[in-house]
């Protein structure tokens, strides 16, 4: 079953087409990532799905229905750059937000689940940015939603806080929740997402599993061997200090190594290079994912 479905979704501001005729679906129980640089239209898209903005045209279906007030009980949202009330404690914050819903989870259990127990009575403003984001995720879960939207949840976090939050998000999937994630970090999409939609300039360029996309657009893996000039029996390309062999699959690596061994060829170093989503993005758009201006 599809939890989200959009058809020809479009949002226009004056002359700017922020979201340009996009159609996709998100399946129940998956982590779906919308990957793209800043300004690609990710937030506009997610905010239309969250019922914060109205589409200019096109259709949205959430749990098979058009957006309506009742659906708000079933979704949980972490808006981009969200900062909660400065002078409420973690527990008070969660109690406040849970009071807004008909059904809500036990706040103390939620604190336990998101691993905020030690900070439950700490004022929000005194938390580190990593913990603040974790509280933000917890707020998005107070109503035990079936669908969770996380808009750039790890932007501005240090690497360890980012990894920490990734584990929290993986955990949500284990609980059977569907997660819609926007990010401009390709590692994040690659690590977390079951499926990725690559977005650029308001359009979705391609959708698929990360591996699928890499295989499709990133080209084949390459074996790079330094310290030799040639290798018989293989199609190779010379590069500075060594050669480069394009392989079909990872099994070929062992045959290359045994061939080097058999011929007693001495080499300095061997490396396998696989494409990643960043390469896919460059291939598809000619731009880098992380703009210098973003970070």
């Amino acid at each position: 079953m599809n939890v989200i479905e959009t058809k020809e979704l479009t949002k226009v501001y004056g002359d700017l087409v922020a979201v340009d005729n996009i159609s996709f679906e998100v399946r129940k129980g998956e982590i779906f990532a919308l990957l793209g640089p800043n300004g690609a239209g990710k937030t506009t898209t997610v905010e239309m799905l969250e019922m914060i903005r109205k589409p200019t045209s096109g259709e949205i279906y959430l749990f098979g229905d058009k957006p309506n007030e009742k659906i708000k009980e079933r979704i949980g949202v972490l808006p981009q750059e969200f900062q909660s009330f400065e002078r409420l404690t973690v527990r008070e914050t969660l109690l406040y937000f849970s009071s807004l819903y008909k059904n809500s989870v036990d706040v103390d259990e939620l604190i336990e689940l998101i691993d905020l127990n030690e900070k439950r009575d700490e004022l929000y403003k005194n938390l580190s940015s990593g913990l603040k984001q974790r509280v933000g995720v917890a707020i998005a879960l107070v109503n035990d939603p079936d669908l969770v939207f996380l808009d750039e949840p790890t932007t501005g976090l240090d690497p360890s806080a980012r990894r920490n939050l990734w584990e929290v998000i993986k955990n949500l999937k284990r609980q059977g929740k569907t997660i819609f994630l926007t990010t401009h970090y390709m590692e994040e999409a690659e690590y977390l997402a079951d499926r990725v939609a690559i977005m650029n300039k308001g359009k979705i360029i391609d959708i698929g599993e990360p591996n699928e996309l890499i295989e499709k657009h990133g080209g084949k893996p390459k074996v790079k061997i330094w310290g030799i000039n040639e290798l018989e029996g293989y199609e190779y390309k010379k590069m500075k200090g060594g050669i480069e062999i394009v392989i079909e699959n990872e099994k070929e690596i062992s045959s290359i190594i045994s061939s080097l061994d058999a011929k007693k060829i001495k080499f300095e170093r061997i490396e396998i290079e696989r494409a990643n989503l960043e390469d896919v993005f460059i291939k598809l758009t000619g731009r880098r994912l992380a703009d210098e201006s973003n970070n």
Partner: protein
Amino acid sequence: MRAIIKDFELSIKNWYRNKAAVFWTVAFPVLLILIFGAIFSGGEQKILLGIQDLDNSFASKAFIENISKIEIVDVKIIKADEDIKEFVKEHGAALQIPKGFQDALINKEEINLTLYLDPSKETTNSAVRTFVANVLNELNIRLNNGRNYIRCKEESVVSKEYEYIDFFIPGVIGMTIMTSAIYGSVEINLKYRKRGILKKLLTTPLKRSYWIFAKMLYFLFLAFLSTFIIVGVGKLVFDAKITLNLFSLLTIISASFAFTGIGMLIARFVNEEESADSAASAIIFPMMFLAGTFFPLEMMPSYLQIFAKILPLYYVNEGLRNAMIFRDFHKSLLNLAIISIFAIIVFIMGTIITKWEED
């Protein structure tokens, strides 16, 4: 309903944990009254007593001369053809020596002097009363061996006059409600928008009208708090002749709602933080000075007086003064009606015209 109570609770917590906000809500109006009150209340050390001599005799003149020699009293002679009550309204206390004073003394007959007092000036009245009683007592001892021939009856002159502090306190209440509700609701909106809280709330089932209502309750709480502090300080420090009655409380409720509504509208139409602040100030300051907060409207040129009458704060000030000082409940009800209608209009505009949803 649960959401409204929770939201109210949240605002209060956020407020009392913010030391600066508490200081300004509580201390600013108090400072204002203390400063203005001190400036405008001239310290009266001596007892001011008017004396009207209707006997115009040797004995009455001697009596007045003797009283004038006493240092703690400042005697003003009221001419026989002047209205003694007018003097009392203005200055507080006057003693009238009746015709036949000298004859009564000579014949050892009973005679009544009349002490006119303004009951609203009770603190000085007791001093005047004691003073006059002592003077007459001494006279009785000397002339009549202590027999009480010369007596004094008291008459009240109710003064419609009020002192500056009485005029000022309702003005400070109106002004405080206005500034805290307008600035406060603009600030909450901008802060919530900047922090993504408004967006977050949009994705929850919370209705916008409930949210606005919860904020109105919060600013009403602050309004009552400031009012009680202002009235308390006014009464304790300046002995202000004001009362908090049903009409003044109703006026405060609708004023607080109306100004919160104005703040919500400003915040909706002005997005930038600084421009919203300036827009709020542009509405607050002219209103503060032109709506009769610090001085009576009659002191202003007539075109400004006409202008003042389109300002909501004018009706708040008028309503509060009519209720708190003059106890003119007809006028106060009229002002209350105007503010209430205004509050309802802004609330409806606030919930219908403005929207949380973004473009």
